[in-house]
């Protein structure tokens, strides 16, 4: 292991094709060509940014949060900027699991990329039903159980803030599918490790964290909340230290692997979250500021491995004691 040499800021992008084998990762028994995953809700179904570069440059994609029936989402404004980040209150707008299976999955399945289906429901049974539907089709590699959406009244964060509810939802999904199950945790709790353990006990194969932090902004001119839904989820670099802390704590509390996320926008951030204990990580809001962020991070990580004599990026997982 090297002395943690820092990356040069002088470089050409996109750079000539490089061997990035050092980034190959196996996570929940699924092959990832690199540990970079587009976070749910920030990358649609992978079509939008294909005007700039192929989706297959990424290790994986976690698709837009999917519910049993179509969901129109919340009223606008749904977006508010914050210092080093943003609030969103989309409200899980999505076309429903059947539309996903019929219209999006066939194209995703053809690509050399790990497909993570992010699911959300109002009851544990609904989560189970969606997972069962997805399992009947080839194409989905991992199910990410969202028990942490702060923007919907029913379900969402209600499941992610109670041990019992988190256990019940995880168990329902576990019993409905043979696919790897990863539960996405909410940071809006007193002890994230308790919820993490409940998910592990219920049979989760892995965890992803953190979802957004509940926040709010007020327009001082109108004296009203900026978001129509009053509150929303905070993401972006502002929440990164919280994510590092929670991944660090959780990695020490459970035996199952972790996919880290929350404000990652550079390769240095990615290294931090992996050193805290994450095996893979998701990039979200950073993509809005720089559409090439996931590619730059992958490229910089491989360069970091090269200059630090790291044969595979997995060597650094949890090295921070």
């Amino acid at each position, binding site marked *: 292991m090297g002395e943690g040499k820092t990356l040069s800021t002088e470089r050409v992008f996109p750079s000539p094709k490089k061997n990035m084998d050092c980034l190959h990762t196996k996570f929940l028994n699924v092959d990832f060509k690199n540990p970079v995953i587009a976070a749910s*809700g*920030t*990358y*649609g179904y992978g079509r*939008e*940014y294909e*005007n*700039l570069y192929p989706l297959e440059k990424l290790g994986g994609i976690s698709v*837009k949060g999917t519910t049993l029936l*179509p969901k*129109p*989402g*919340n*009223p*606008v*404004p*749904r*977006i*508010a*900027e*914050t*210092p*080093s*980040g*943003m609030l*969103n209150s*989309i409200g899980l*707008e999505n*076309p429903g699991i059947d539309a996903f299976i019929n219209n999006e999955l066939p194209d995703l399945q053809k690509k050399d990329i790990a497909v993570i289906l992010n699911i959300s429901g109002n009851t544990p049974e609904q989560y189970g039903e969606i997972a069962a539907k997805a399992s009947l089709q080839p194409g989905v590699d991992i199910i990410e159980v969202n028990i942490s959406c702060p923007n919907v009244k029913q379900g969402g964060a209600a499941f992610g803030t109670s041990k019992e509810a988190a256990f019940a939802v995880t168990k329902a999904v576990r019993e409905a599918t043979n696919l790897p199950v990863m539960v996405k945790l909410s940071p809006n709790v007193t002890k994230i490790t308790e919820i993490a353990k409940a998910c592990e006990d219920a049979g989760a194969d892995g965890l992803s964290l953190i979802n957004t932090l509940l926040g709010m902004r007020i327009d001082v001119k109108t004296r009203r909340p900026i978001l*129509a839904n009053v509150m929303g989820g905070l993401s*972006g*670099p502002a929440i990164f230290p919280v994510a590092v802390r929670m991944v660090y704590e959780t990695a020490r509390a459970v035996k199952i692997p972790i996919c880290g996320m929350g404000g990652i926008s550079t390769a240095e951030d990615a290294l931090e979250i992996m050193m805290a204990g994450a095996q893979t990580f998701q990039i979200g*809001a950073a*993509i*809005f*500021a*720089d*559409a*090439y962020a996931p590619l730059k991070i992958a490229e910089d990580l491989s360069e970091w491995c090269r200059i630090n004599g790291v044969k595979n990026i997995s060597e650094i997982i949890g090295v921070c004691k």
Partner: protein
Amino acid sequence: MLQKEIKINQKQWLNKTTVLFTLDSAELSAQTRPGQFLNIKADGKFLRRPISVAQIGTDTVSIVFEIRGDGTRIIAEKNTGEMLDILGPLGKGFSVEKYKKPLLIGGGIGSPPMLSIAEKYGEASTAVLGFRNAEAVILEGFFKNTGCTTMICTDDRSYGYAGNAVFNAQKFIGGGNFDVIFACGPKVMLKAAVKLAEEKKIPIEISLEERMACGVGACLGCACGEIGDNKITQTYLHVCKDGPVFGVENGQLVKLQ
């Protein structure tokens, strides 16, 4: 679509708070259509700012925008020769190939997108542009230079015709033989323009704005439903990807082909 740093080769203040940048990129201009927008990075701010295109040259694209907050101020403070980090062109533009004789209605900072249409049609187009007062009037000479019949009006009667843009458009529309209305401006103006189009049985296309993050249809932040209210319908239309230009049928926004 491209994400790139592009050089500002001309900067012009149109009034105290409105600036025009001409951006030097043949690659960008070749892809851009009237009504599309760029999502522009403001240094030190997290989200990009969506700004619509005002002119499309052979190897330049120009944008006109008003300082509305910190982000637009940061962008406006850039100077000639500096680089602007843009993502674009984004969204669907106006159906300029489909119609022959458009009436353009622009309200305030909604006027710049109309200029790129006037450039396309020249003398075949008529523009009615409304502003708050004489100080707010922008781009009059630019419109006239295209050959477009241009009428400027102000709410406070301090310049040009008196009254708002739709009120004045109503007076001229009868003799114009227009086959479409293209409009951009505040929601109340757009609602009035839609009503006018319905009365005269002329198709209309309107350009909307909404707070957005990605600009490409990934985050779903900029949902829109019926025109003029907050109601989100099951139509799943989004300003950035399905718009910003929409048709209107029976009070409902319609995605253009």
